[in-house]
């Protein structure tokens, strides 16, 4: 027995530390290469550019004898530092209050609605007796996720345009026409509605997979003890789902200052009247970038966005780990 295990372990050790091992790692490393190059180029190369948030960026042409010939890199390195001026400028503008409120408010709302609707869908699908129908429903509910926000802008347009469905209904009810593109208040409902419409099916898939993985005996035992469906949900499904919910929310919290740019930018279809209820940081950054404002401003906003997001993920994760180590993400 002992000799055999000794022999195996020697063989294993040989395989782990032998020359073949390096070669195998070489194979692994070449597999990583395409993704690695992508990450270096698209995720890590732009990182130094965040110093632009603290600079008064001006485009300058590098002199001939400079070792950096890229005008952008040269200007980035040689522009004057401006400290926190860019941040001050943004946060003193009246826009700041609007876009912060909108971004954070909508994201919190979306998170809450996301949990409620996704779990409802998942539980409902799981409980239905006709499995074929349940799958069919889920397939259909998942469909909107694959449509772009631009398409949804069109769909929405068919509803709320002057000759749209909403106004037809208003006609039928004998009410006055509404022009939603000029009603800021309406968007507080439209955006969450659109968000649920597009994401409920998709979000439910993880919950559904988690629920189907639960031990059925728990439910059977509860049923024997006379627990109805609601009690089973309240005392079995929900507590077991909490780790999944928290895991997903940690990621969502990190994106609280981001948002679906496409959604906030395209759904209002360029209607300036509803800017108050649809302007988010992303849209602000893009508009500032496009309207030729000094590049330091959108950089500062984007930097703020990234940093707060990162800090929020770390904080939430730390808090969760303190309270319930198993539920933390890392």
């Amino acid at each position: 027995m002992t000799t055999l295990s000794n022999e195996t372990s020697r063989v294993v050790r040989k395989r782990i530390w032998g020359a073949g091992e390096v070669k195998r790692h070489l194979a692994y490393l070449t597999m990583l290469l395409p993704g690695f190059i992508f990450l270096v180029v698209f995720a890590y190369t732009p990182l130094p550019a965040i110093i632009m948030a603290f600079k008064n960026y001006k485009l300058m042409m590098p002199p001939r004898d400079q070792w950096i010939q890229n005008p952008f890199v040269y200007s980035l390195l040689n522009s004057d530092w401006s400290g926190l001026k860019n941040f001050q400028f943004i946060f003193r503008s009246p826009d700041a209050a609007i876009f912060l409120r909108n971004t954070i408010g909508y994201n919190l709302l979306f998170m809450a609605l996301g949990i409620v609707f996704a779990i409802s869908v998942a539980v409902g699908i799981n409980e239905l007796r006709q499995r074929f129908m349940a799958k069919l429903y889920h397939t259909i509910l998942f469909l909107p996720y694959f449509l772009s926000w631009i398409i949804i802008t069109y769909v929405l347009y068919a509803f709320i345009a002057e000759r749209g469905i909403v106004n037809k209904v208003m006609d039928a009810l004998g009410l006055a026409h509404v022009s939603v593109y000029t009603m800021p208040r309406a968007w507080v409902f439209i955006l969450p509605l659109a968000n649920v419409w597009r994401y409920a099916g998709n979000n439910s898939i993880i919950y559904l997979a988690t629920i189907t993985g639960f031990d059925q005996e728990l439910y059977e035992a509860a049923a024997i003890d006379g627990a109805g469906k609601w009690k089973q949900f309240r005392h079995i499904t929900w507590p077991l789902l909490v780790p999944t919910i928290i895991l997903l929310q940690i990621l969502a919290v990190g994106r609280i200052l981001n948002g679906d740019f496409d959604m906030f930018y395209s759904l209002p279809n360029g209607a300036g009247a509803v800017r108050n209820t649809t302007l988010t940081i992303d849209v602000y950054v893009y508009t500032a970038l496009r309207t030729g404002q000094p590049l330091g401003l959108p950089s500062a906003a984007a930097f703020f966005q990234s940093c707060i997001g990162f800090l929020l993920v770390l904080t939430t994760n730390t808090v969760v780990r303190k309270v319930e180590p198993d539920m933390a993400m890392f």
Partner: protein
Amino acid sequence: MTTQAKAYTPSRKKFKNMNELSTTANLIVHVIFIAACLCCIVPLWIVVAASLTEEQTLVLEGYNLWPRKFSTMAYTFLFSSGGGGVLVAYKNTIIATLIGTCLCVMSVGLYAYPLSRTDFRYGRFFTFFSYFSMLFNAGTVAFYLLCSQILHINNSILALFLPQSFSAYWVIIMRTFYRSNVPDAVIESARIDGAGEWRTLLQIVCPLAVPGFATVALFAAVGVWNNFFNCLLLINDRKYFNLQYTIYEILRSVQALKEMASQQGGASSNAGISLANLPSESFRMAMAVVTMGPIVLAYPFFQRYFVKGLTIGAVKG
């Protein structure tokens, strides 16, 4: 699943029925789901119906569940005159989607495999290296400057797919998928038979990971097809516009075109359709239909793959 169900003892099975929804409750849940599904389908149908409605009827009577007066003029216009660059945009989008999807599946599949192996010693570093890109990014401005000032991929078709040719999120899903769907024993035996890592991956692991690849491919393809932001941010040249951006532009500017036509008393366009009766509303809706068409049609075929890929990849992660 089925074998497990069969293994249940009769009493268990009887009991299982007891914990099912009552017939009434089941019916109510059905009704709710049917209503929800209608909410998903009907809006799309309204767009399709509008695209098939004769323009004047659409303008006068508004949107309906059924075309009051059937006409395919919007589609004729769309495909005849190059309808506002739609065909060019279609070509760009298809090219970008094909290349982007291949690149994404390849890079994600390759990156995730070593991370799924317990014998890969640098796994932690490379996992973090990709994971960090999800937690912290340099933001839109840096991305814009990178693409336009350093890589110079703005105003080229590269801008439509290159930034999406990899995804840290799918690496995590794919890694879990490999771990749970490719048994160690299989890889071990391939190794004993003398297969190198590349050969093991391509000949043994890949066939087992098809649902995972299909999932990544589907989402990557949809991601590129639906991408709007890259085109908005990086492309000014009409030649390289993609579908989403083109139809977004048309939603805004057909109106302008129409206003112009009414001012000029209906000068004729090069399509031979006078601007005054340019099918603007139905045309727009036809654009939306041809843009979402491929996705909606392809979706049911992919669906059984991706649900499996998603659930296996996501849950155990």
